[in-house]
């Protein structure tokens, strides 16, 4: 057991008597990790507590909360997962008051693996590990600096590998609509491979991720074709911050900019004619 895992274990041991369960990652047989709800009754399972690789725990939290709305739960979350929980709360997917956040700070290697700009938690009251600074994202910078033709060639090359498994949508903590535009024949040619260019699937998904993407990169991790789609989301997130001063997961009571009315000064920043 590493020092980090040990200190996480100590925090969980402290929290577990006050809550109904602690959601974290458990290492199962064969070394496979998966989200798991640790409870007081089975505290010996805590020996199999794991940290890495990260798993989409906010999604699991939502499922558990829907089944048991009154349950007091704690969750071990990294910076990205915490942002996911905040955004899910803003869109009424979670009950905030029943959740205790245990903030697990990422290490330098983990942050570099994720090209993460914010590998630390901000809302969590319990902290494990030392917060570190964000790391630069060379891939996004590279693509942002390309010319239009180069971008077009790059994305065409990437999207041609897409097998439309919908894995990126399924794993996304922010994709929770009951009726999904990506399953609608009007917008996306379902079952046609390789998808025609420009790819409606990826463009619509990128548009729907505006001011919602929390940069957890679960979609890139899960993609069997290795498409770096989070790059588009990240570039748009920068524009959203510029135009609407909105940062996903940063402030709990800041309303998402998709809401109808333009706020003071927003219109000037969108660059539209007067």
């Amino acid at each position, binding site marked *: 057991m590493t020092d980090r895992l040990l200190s996480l274990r100590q925090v969980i041991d402290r929290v577990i008597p006050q809550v109904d369960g602690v959601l974290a990652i458990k290492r199962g047989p064969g070394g496979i990790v998966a989200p798991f709800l640790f409870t007081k009754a089975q505290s010996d399972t805590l020996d199999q507590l794991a940290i890495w690789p990260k798993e989409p725990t906010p999604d699991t939290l939502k499922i558990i909360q829907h089944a048991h709305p009154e349950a007091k739960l704690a969750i071990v979350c990294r910076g990205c997962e915490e942002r996911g929980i905040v955004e899910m709360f803003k869109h009424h997917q979670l009950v905030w008051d029943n959740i205790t956040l245990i903030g697990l700070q990422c290490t330098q290697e983990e942050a570099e693996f994720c090209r993460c700009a914010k590998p630390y938690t901000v809302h969590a009251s319990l902290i494990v590990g030392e917060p570190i600074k964000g790391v630069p994202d060379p891939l996004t910078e590279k693509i942002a600096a390309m010319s239009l033709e180069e971008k077009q060639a790059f994305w065409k090359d990437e999207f041609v590998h897409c097998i439309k498994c919908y894995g990126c949508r399924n794993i996304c903590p922010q994709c929770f609509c009951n009726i999904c535009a990506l399953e609608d024949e009007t917008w996306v040619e379902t079952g046609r491979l390789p998808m025609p260019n420009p790819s409606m699937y990826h463009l619509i998904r990128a548009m729907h991720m505006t001011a919602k993407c929390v940069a957890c990169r679960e979609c890139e991790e899960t993609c069997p074709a290795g498409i770096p789609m989070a790059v588009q989301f990240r570039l748009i997130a920068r524009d959203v911050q510029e*135009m609407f001063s909105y940062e996903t997961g940063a402030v709990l009571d800041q309303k998402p900019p998709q809401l109808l009315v333009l706020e003071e000064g927003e219109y000037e920043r969108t660059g539209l004619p007067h």
Partner: protein
Amino acid sequence: MYEPKIIGFLCNWCSYRGADTAGMARLKYPPNVKIIRVPCSGRISPELVLRTFREGADGVMVLGCHIGDCHYSNGNHRTAKRMPVLKKLLEYTGIDPNRLAVDWVSAAEGEKFANVITHFTEKISALPPFVETMK
């Protein structure tokens, strides 16, 4: 020289009436724009614009009421929020963002309507056909 295909989504209350005004004033503008009348410019979802491009349009125009004049009080605020983001997305995907134009034309601005259409058609004519850039 090719004739660009342009689709114009016009809001029923301002821009479509603006087109009527331009017609009544016998103003000249290029015939490349196919006009689709919609209840409000806020009706135009990004999916709709993307599909229009996918179907082979070289340019898309979204015209609505001026901010503050919307028939549904703040429907065009939606347009003002989503279209700039869509333009950025087009740019990041390698599609020229100038192919999408957003502007505000009121029912009285027949002259502005003709100007907007003329300028946009000129701009699109200078670009290669959209389908060819996607090959």
